[in-house]
């Protein structure tokens, strides 16, 4: 928990430009997951497992 807090604090202290680059990577990753259909498959799997 403390380690997670530390990590978030460290990320928060980065310059805005750096944080926006991370944001862009997060967005690209989300889009790639959505395009691959992985998310839909995971939801279907979850529903099947109740």
């Amino acid at each position: 928990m403390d380690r997670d807090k530390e990590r978030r604090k460290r990320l928060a202290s980065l310059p805005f430009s750096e944080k926006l680059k991370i944001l862009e990577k997060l967005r690209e990753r989300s889009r790639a997951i959505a395009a691959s259909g992985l998310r839909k498959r995971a939801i279907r799997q979850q529903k099947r497992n109740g």
Partner: protein
Amino acid sequence: MKATLEMINRMQADGVIGKYAIGGAVGATFYLEPLATADVDIFVLLPMAPGGSLLSVAPIYEYLTARGCRVEGERIVVGDWPVQFLPPHDALEQEALAQAVETEVEGIRTWVLSAEHLIAIALETGRAKDYARIVHFLEQDAVDADRLNRVLMRHGLVPKWQQFERKYLEE
């Protein structure tokens, strides 16, 4: 994001928009760790139309589509990012724009809403993701409590804040 901000600044220099500031998750990222989001909220002042007619974001869309940007529902893709342009709809958002913080992204001048205004707008909007963002600000001590109190008082949001505190901070 650089290309997005460059295009918005050009649009401002060309007089299509007045002052603008980044809000939402991207704005919050100025103060916090990066918060995943699919789009950018830009609060924007629109120049008064001749005759004082109703303000519309149509000139923004016309300007941007003429420069190759693509409309996606309520958003328009500028550079790499879908952007939603939001003219201020109440006194809180007008004040938020007036008091936005100037910064730079990769050498490009831009403005971001203050942490206190981002919180007040999130409180007013009131979706689950907005409340989660407020919790992030509080957890990371990224807010000036006195300044936030003054914003909440000025805009009649104290009762809503007390409700939020009871529901999310006291459990």
